[in-house]
């Protein structure tokens, strides 16, 4: 009984790992719409990490303590892709859809976080990509409008 259970757990862990932690080579983000070339661009974690890194330490409504988020400066991503729109339509793995004004990115230096407290975020904890606002340094952001824009499990972005 005990052995069976152990095997089961081990199997489960093995099964879970690849699904929850995307590998560096996997496409985790697709961007389309008004971008250079006009065709959808698929990006892997390596692609994103190549765009630079930024960190925001802030409390969020979803955690009782401040967390250090690390990831791609959103601005760098848009520049890299030659995005010209003013609104980003964000779709998450859980089919959550939200709109993000490009102005927010300019104003608040948003990041597309990959890591949380130094570890890559799994799907089961808002991964692999999480749009993070600097809530603590801008108290005006602490309301449901920005909480709603702060999408997790981001999968694709359409620039319009």
């Amino acid at each position, binding site marked *: 009984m005990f052995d069976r259970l152990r095997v089961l757990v081990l199997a489960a862990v093995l*099964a*879970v790992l690849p699904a929850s932690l995307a590998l560096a080579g996997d496409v985790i983000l697709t961007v389309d719409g008004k971008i250079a070339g006009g065709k959808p661009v698929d990006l892997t974690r390596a692609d994103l990490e190549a765009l630079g890194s930024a960190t925001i330490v802030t409390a969020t409504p*979803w955690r009782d303590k401040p967390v250090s988020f690390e990831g791609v400066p959103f601005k760098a991503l848009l520049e890299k892709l030659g995005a010209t729109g003013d609104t980003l339509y964000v779709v998450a*793995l859980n*089919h959550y859809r939200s709109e993000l004004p490009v102005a927010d990115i300019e104003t608040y230096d948003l990041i597309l976080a990959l890591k949380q407290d130094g570890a890559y975020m799994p799907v089961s*904890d808002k991964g692999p990509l999480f749009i993070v606002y600097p809530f603590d340094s801008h108290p005006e952001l602490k309301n449901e409008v920005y909480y709603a824009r702060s999408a*997790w499990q981001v999968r694709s972005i359409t620039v319009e």
Partner: protein
Amino acid sequence: MPVRPGRSARSRSNDMSPARPDLPPICRVTGIFNVLAALMTIALLIIIAVHANLVTETERTMQRSSRYDSAWVGAAGRIEILNLQKALAGFALSRSEEDADQVVLFTEILANRFSIYRAPGFQAFLDAKPRRRQLLVEAESRFAMARPQLAAVRDLNAAALAALGAELERVFAAVDRVGAEGQADSVNEAAQIRAEMRARQTLQTWLVSGLFGSIALLLAMSTVQNRFLRSATRSAQRSAMDFSYLAHHDSLTGLPNRMAFTDAFARAAAACSEGRTRKIAVLALDLDGFKNINDRLGHGVGDALLRQVAERLAGCCAAFDNCMLTARVGGDEFVVMLDASDGAQDVLAQAEQLRAALSESYVAAGGSLLVGASGGIAVSDADGDPDALLVNADIALAQAKLSGKGRVVAFDPATREAFLRRALIEAELGEAIATGQIVPHYQIKMDVGSGRVCGVEALARWTHPTLGAISTAEFTPIAEGSGLILSLGRSILERACRDARSFPEGIGVAVNLSAIQFMRDDVVDAIEQVLRATGLPAHRLTLEVTETLMLSESERAIDTLTRLRDMGVAIALDDFGTGYSALSYLRQFPWDELKIDRSFIVEMETDARARAIVGSITAMAHELGIDVTAEGVETRGQVEALRAVGCETLQGYFLGRPVAVADLPWAMLEGVAAVARIGSGVAAPAQSRSA
């Protein structure tokens, strides 16, 4: 020293003081506004306090409404588990890799959701009902148990998949219920927030209304206040003008008053002394007997008369080119200031014209009233003091009054001193009587036949501290004019009666009784009282009266004289021969003595007719059994002339001047000596020891 004769008694009705106005309404309005302003300040403070509290409350509500949205968190959970169920069901049918991946993905997503359920923002919602947390905890543990199987979904057979589906169905029931409740709570809370906000908004509306109301009230108040202030300013200006007008005008006649005259006169006088203008003349006018009219016909008539006088004056003066000012300076005294550059004669003519105008009849008391007017005029000269002009005009006016009224007299510098002396005497007479400065002096009467003193006449004598001796002839008319004659006569009578007690037996005292004293109802009682008080026997007192008291009410006068004579008092008719000296007087009353006026005596030495008259009077009097005394005998020739016509009782400087009571024995001795010298042929007039 401005001396104003006869102006001491100013009547109440003819007075010239301005009326005092009421307090302006602005004072009352300001009081009300102060209370309103205080109330409004309190109201505003309350509004501010309530508003501050409201803002805080609203802020709190806003924060609550901005809180983490539990409804969405719950709802998203419901979708995610449905997606997982759908993926599992799809995999059970297809067994494809893709569907397996979907199951794995949504398992992870649901795991994420359970971690979100632990988020701090969601805990308040979970704690609202204990059952919620319990449901969710159960669901999470079920999911945790199912999670390894879901991750390894590819390895499960159909039965296991069905069991897993059933397990997910249970998890779904909990998540669904919590999600639904989250939505309901959210709706309720939103409704509650809306209700609160609406209530606050209502309150806010009231506050704003209150605020606007206060502002409106303030504006209204300031408008009203402004209006009152404007009207107060206007009325202040008006009353300042009124006051200035009242201060410079006489309220009864509307003419400029004394103050206005003084101002105008000062300006004119200054112009005069700087040589800028010419001469000025001041004419003082007043009505003859105005006081009588006021007293007898009433102040109403007096006031009406004064108004007409003012109108006439103003009317006449308007016709003069050179009139500078017309003013009422006192009861019935008016002053006209004239430019006299063209000559004093013209001004005098104008003055007479004005006086004549005032003397025409007036309409008063339902009929016509004739009142005389007198005037005094003074003209400035090059080196004279202009300030003295008004005083000089007043002096001239007083002279006009004294010299028979109804005329204008020009000021004569020579009379100024006499007038001022008279004014001083008038001013100090009362005090002099009260303090005994005026005492009787005595002049002897001699019977030149027997060479004996047969009596003395008491003559009032005033020894003034600065003016020296003032004769009775000087101050008696003044005393008669002011009514002081009564106290003066009484005082002299008392002193004389007291003094006479020490006179040698057989020598009586004669005291003058003025017509004014005589007219008093109580004159008989008064004299009886004096006699009793002093202890002088009545037969030693002679009262000297003049014929004036026989002129009117002669029957009453005779009755009074008879009563006095019945008391034993002798009655002498003084100053006989002047005036009417009707012989009927001698028949109407049994006089004890006639005193022939000095004017006849003075003429006797040179005028045979005077000798004849005195002789006839003496003979007639003696025939009637009346003694005769000649007054004012000053020379031996007069003595002899009088003796020649049978008049032997004499009085005068030749026999002795009036002397103080202490000197009377010497005067008597000298009188006897003087008569003796005539008898012995030595002619030497007696000299009084002192004046």
